[in-house]
């Protein structure tokens, strides 16, 4: 593996809740709890997990849209969390984000051209009006839209087209890393395929690196080189996409994979149905976060000690006392 483009070390984010003036309340939400991973250039790392497992918060912490509580983020050999405002603005040209909701992520009062070209205005990348228009048209064509779309407003477009606009906006600064925060979850299945193919094409053409956040395992399997599975703010398993899907080690990954629908009606798989709900991230379980629902747990060890993320085979990491 070459030197990583992005490397996250022990990232932790806790949200204070209800800390008012008179109502003192020390409750915190442990959204991300000591997450570490790295992505080499040109690779796609998939990040999967249920709602509330901290995947989106991880992505937002990397861009400092959310200020991390602890941990370090290294990007191209620089510590992102230690940068001042000016250096961080420069960094914005290398890291971008694509959002989940194509309806909330575009300003309804701006034309598509202004939305896509905003980065050019902010970073003064277009020396003249003609250069600005040329670049916006180029970006529109890169994502499969047309030049005359630039004078329209977002509400005139369908979900898939809007997501393409969001991608064009992210591409405007020629970033190296794009954080895709569930970019296809809000789209129809047929449109999902188009957007994913577009993302793959762009990766090939522009040498992009993706952190691909999703909850749909089949989407992630298709696009990712490696996949990390999150549960309650921690990575429980990290492996190459193939390894993870063929030989999952963590019982949570096994349960997730058994829930993926199979298109062949004859192929019957054993469903592993987890009991209970995801525990509250305000009071996460002690030890291994998964021990309350784990089918293979061994008390009291699992309830006492949090298992570290250990490498079992080459490149296959798992955080489980019993499987590593």
């Amino acid at each position: 593996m070459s030197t990583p483009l992005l490397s996250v070390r022990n990232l932790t984010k806790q949200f204070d809740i209800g800390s008012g003036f008179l109502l003192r309340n020390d409750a915190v939400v442990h959204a991300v709890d000591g997450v570490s991973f790295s992505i080499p250039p040109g690779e796609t790392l998939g990040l999967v997990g249920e709602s509330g497992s901290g995947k989106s918060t991880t992505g937002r912490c990397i861009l400092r849209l959310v200020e991390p509580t602890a941990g370090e983020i290294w990007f191209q050999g620089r510590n992102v969390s230690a940068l001042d405002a000016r250096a961080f603005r420069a960094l914005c040209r290398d890291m971008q984000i694509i959002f989940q909701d194509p309806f909330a992520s575009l300003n309804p009062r701006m034309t598509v051209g202004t939305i896509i070209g905003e980065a050019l205005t902010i970073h003064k990348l277009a020396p003249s009006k003609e250069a600005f228009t040329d670049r916006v048209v180029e970006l529109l064509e890169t994502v499969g839209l047309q030049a005359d779309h630039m004078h329209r407003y977002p509400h005139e477009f369908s979900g898939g087209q809007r997501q393409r606009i969001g991608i064009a906006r992210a591409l405007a600064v020629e970033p190296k890393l794009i954080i895709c925060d569930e970019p296809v979850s809000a789209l129809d299945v047929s449109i999902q395929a188009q957007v994913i193919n577009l993302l793959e094409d762009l990766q090939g053409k522009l040498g992009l690196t993706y952190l691909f956040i999703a909850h749909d395992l089949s989407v992630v399997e298709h696009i990712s080189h490696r996949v990390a599975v999150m549960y309650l703010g921690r990575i429980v398993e990290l492996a190459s996409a193939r390894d993870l899907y063929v030989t999952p080690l963590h019982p949570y990954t096994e349960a997730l994979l058994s829930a993926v629908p199979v298109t062949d009606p004859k192929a019957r798989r054993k469903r592993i149905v987890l009991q209970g709900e995801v525990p509250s991230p305000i009071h996460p379980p002690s030890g291994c976060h998964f021990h309350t629902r784990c089918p293979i747990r061994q008390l009291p060890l699992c309830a006492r000690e949090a298992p570290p993320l250990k490498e079992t085979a080459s490149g296959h990491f798992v955080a489980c006392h019993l499987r590593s």
Partner: protein
Amino acid sequence: MVGSIPASATAELSAAPRSKAKQFSPWLDAWRRFRRHRLALVSTVVLSAIVLSVLFMPFVWSVPINEIDFTARLKGPSPAHPFGTDDLGQDLLSRMLYGGRISLAVAFAAMVVAIVVGTIIGAIAGMSRGWVGPALMWLTDLFLSLPPLPLLLLVIYLFRDSLKSVFGPEGGVFILIVLVVGGLRWMPAARLVRAQFLSLREKEFVEAARALGASRLRQVIRHILPNALGPVIVAATVDVAAAIIAESTLSFLGLGFPPDIPSWGRILFDAKDYLDIAPHWAMFPGVAIFLTVLSISFIGDGLRDALDPRKVM
């Protein structure tokens, strides 16, 4: 999943190229919805008629406002004096037109003061994450809990003479009334703007701007404020109506403009002693205030519906 679906590199072009004439900006869209609100449309016509006649009628009806004619005291409407005369025989139509200029100018200026102050305070409170926001909201609550009328009387009593000596009788009273009425009406706008900001600043398009490196000021001016403006515009119409009433109240209490500068409220105040002999004197300013406030309120209603994007009419 992907293999079975023929995926194209270009987006689905269901929205095929359209002619330029059919393009709608969000503001054009709002205007289209406003046009369907009949009462608001009628009110717009009425208000425009009032504003236009107040602005331009004095050029046509050039009777001076202070021409005293004791032979024509307290006369009802006639061809020589279409709105009648007052106790000094002054022509009421020209006084009404002149007073309308003052009343509407005061109301509009007070609204601008209230909205600008409210928007700035609400925006700062909505963007701050520390103690500034709560502190500003305490200030807002403090102002909301002040009884407005006694305070108005006190402020006017204290500052009228010093302002008059600096800006002259007309300018001084104008500035004082605008500041006092506007300064006591900014709180609803501040709360409204803060609430809008709190929800908008977490929207993904604002996050996207932040991820692109947009400064705070840019986020506010380009992304948050334009989307927060709808309810503020509605609040502004309500403020105009309230300011007209407030100015009339002050003038009626004798604390507004002096008698030689008629505003609608002042004419009403002067007319109150002659209600039984010359009812027309009070009726014209009363009807003018009533029609103006009512039509502004209806326009506000129409704007509220038109600017609410969820409303499909």
